């Protein structure tokens, strides 16, 4: 339904040459660290921000030069932007009143929306007297009554506390499925991105990094940035050299499946990406399968009941250390030293300061080219769309706000 190609720049390219095709009825997520241009992109869709070049298409209509009111889109703002001088009823009715709907139609639609959002008993109150979650629902009500072509959400949950956020997330998802309306949702929270989205577009400094389903993003990240951004705790990045089918990590060698090893043949020093859950305490792992084991000293252990996080510090060679630090900055992180985070079974008895035997699943390892950040072992069939050289391009952009 929407086919967007656009460039934006006032000397400051906040969004650079992004093309996203949102299907009818799809729940599209724009995600990225702060300053990646996702909000700017959303505001360009709704028409609050000018488009420097490129075409914004809704259906087969080019809407670049249309005023926001002519685009028939509904938006929920980060701070809700409710009208404090109007009651909840009038807040929801506002778009209908502007459209000169009859009183009877206004009443019917507002009551419908209020019923959907369970706001009926609050209709006569002013927004100032509502809780955060209720205000959020009023803002959504105002969007629903429009019967707009698409919903746009700008970090709608970032002002709520953690518990409410979880509830509202489910609520939004349910609402979207029931109304079947095309939705574009901006967030910096990867949990929201993974749980809500049909497809997720990962942005970095105004450049699209990967556009894929949440599962594809997780299992087949297109480059270092996506790999590091998606997943919590984040993927571990280790320097590695591949010789034959064995990958030499700082802790020892790990056997790779031959097809993965072939892709890394003769590339010299690479970056290996392994998710924490692909490690295990060798002593509780009964079926060792294709994995390899290594011994390492565990620095800190965090036992969470169902699982255990163990932290293993390592020294990175200077060639990759810079790259790792840069990546950390891009992800808004503040890690002080290079360490391996491994997620172990809750039954693991490894204690802090002990040397432990750790098992790792080599078949799940990703290999990245440290210079370009590209994932060499990506399964392109199941990775959605990965624009070429996305990371290098993003690197060339000045850091932007927004």
């Amino acid at each position, binding site marked *: 339904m929407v086919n967007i190609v656009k460039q934006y720049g006032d000397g400051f390219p906040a969004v650079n040459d992004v093309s996203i095709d949102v299907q009818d009825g799809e729940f599209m997520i724009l995600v990225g660290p702060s300053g990646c241009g996702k909000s700017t992109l959303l505001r360009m869709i709704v028409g609050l921000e000018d488009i420097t070049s490129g075409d914004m298409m809704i259906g087969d209509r080019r809407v670049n030069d249309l*005023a*926001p*009111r002519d685009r028939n889109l509904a938006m929920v703002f980060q*701070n809700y*932007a*409710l009208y404090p*001088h109007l009651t909840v009823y009038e807040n929801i009715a506002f778009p209908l009143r502007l459209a000169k709907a009859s009183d009877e139609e206004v009443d019917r639609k507002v009551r419908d929306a209020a019923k959907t959002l369970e706001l009926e008993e609050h209709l006569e109150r002013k927004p100032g007297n509502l809780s955060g979650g209720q205000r959020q629902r009023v803002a959504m009500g105002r969007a629903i009554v429009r019967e707009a072509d698409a919903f746009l959400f700008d970090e709608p949950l970032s002002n709520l506390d953690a518990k409410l956020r979880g509830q509202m997330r489910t609520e939004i998802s349910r609402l979207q499925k029931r109304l079947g309306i095309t939705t574009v949702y901006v967030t910096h929270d990867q949990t929201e991105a993974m749980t809500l989205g049909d497809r997720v577009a990962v942005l970095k400094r105004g450049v699209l990094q990967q556009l894929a389903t949440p599962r594809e993003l997780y299992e087949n990240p297109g480059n270092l940035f996506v790999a590091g951004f998606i997943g919590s705790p984040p993927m571990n990045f280790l320097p590695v050299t591949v010789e034959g089918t064995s990958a030499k990590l700082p802790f020892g060698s790990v056997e790779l499946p031959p097809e993965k090893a072939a892709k890394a043949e003769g590339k010299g020093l690479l970056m290996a990406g392994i998710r924490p859950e692909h490690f295990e305490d060798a002593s509780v792992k009964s079926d060792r399968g294709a994995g390899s084991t290594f011994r390492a000293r565990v620095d800190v252990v965090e036992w969470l009941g169902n699982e255990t996080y163990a932290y293993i510090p390592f020294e990175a060679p200077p060639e990759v250390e810079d790259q790792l630090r840069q990546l950390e900055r891009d992800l808004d992180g503040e890690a002080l030293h290079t360490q391996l985070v491994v997620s172990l079974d809750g039954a693991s008895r490894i204690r802090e300061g002990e040397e432990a035997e750790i098992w790792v699943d080599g078949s799940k390892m990703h290999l990245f080219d440290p210079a370009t950040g590209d994932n060499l072992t990506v399964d392109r069939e199941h990775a959605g769309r990965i624009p070429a050289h996305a990371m290098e391009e993003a690197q060339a952009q000045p850091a932007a706000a927004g």
Partner: protein
Amino acid sequence: MAAANATRNKVGTWIGFVVILVWCLLPVAWIVSLSFKGPGETASGSPQFLPKTWTLQNYRDILGFGTVTPGQENTHQDFLDALRNSFGIAAIATVLAVIFATLAAYAIARLEFKGKRLVLSLALAIAMFPVVALVGPLFDLWRTLHLFNTWPGLIIPYMSFTLPLAIWTLSAFFREIPWEMEQAAQVDGATSWQAFRKVIVPLAAPGVFTAAILTFFFAWNEFVLAISLTSTTASRTVPAQLSFFVGPDPFNPPYGLLAASSVVVTVPIIIIVLLFQRKIVAGLTSGAVKG
């Protein structure tokens, strides 16, 4: 010990209140009491605070009901004319000034344009300009333009002197309003004008009322221009008219009449403040965004 301190604080606070109240209200009470005294009492050498005999004669004279004191037959006509002029001029100046100031302040708060600082500093400079310095030139100018002794002749200078303050007040209020409000309205299908009228102006209402009241007070109380740019009761306002209440004896001004007139012109101001003080309460935007 703490209790004793608290009591002492309380007593001190109340003493402070009483001192300030007496300081502020004594002259007002004095004027009110004067307005109920007959000429015999005000002319006597040692006037007491409360009238010996209460009389409404001063009010009868200026408002023209009942029997009027001989020699004051025209006073009430002049006073009522002046009252009408005051109301008309102040109201029109207020409405126009608030409308212009709202539009100007909105532009200043929202738009980035060249010379924005210049406009603001110029407005401030005008506000600081002494009114007296303009009386001479305005007098000549108004006579040439046939604006002398007319309502517009007073409305125009009143507007120009109150606009700067109104613009400053209002632009501060507009800046406080989250821009998202307006964007939300636009996304909801409003034109810029609709967004301004239906969302921004209601939200800035406290500011609008503050500006309106300040403008009205200025125009209502203004004396220098009112006395210089008028010649008859066709446009003379109350403060100027009061200075013509001299009575038959130059050494014995009609204090009672003057006091009664002062009370009458103060009443509307008090009513306006009472009516609008609830509107002036800021914080109307609370609840608009995350609280």
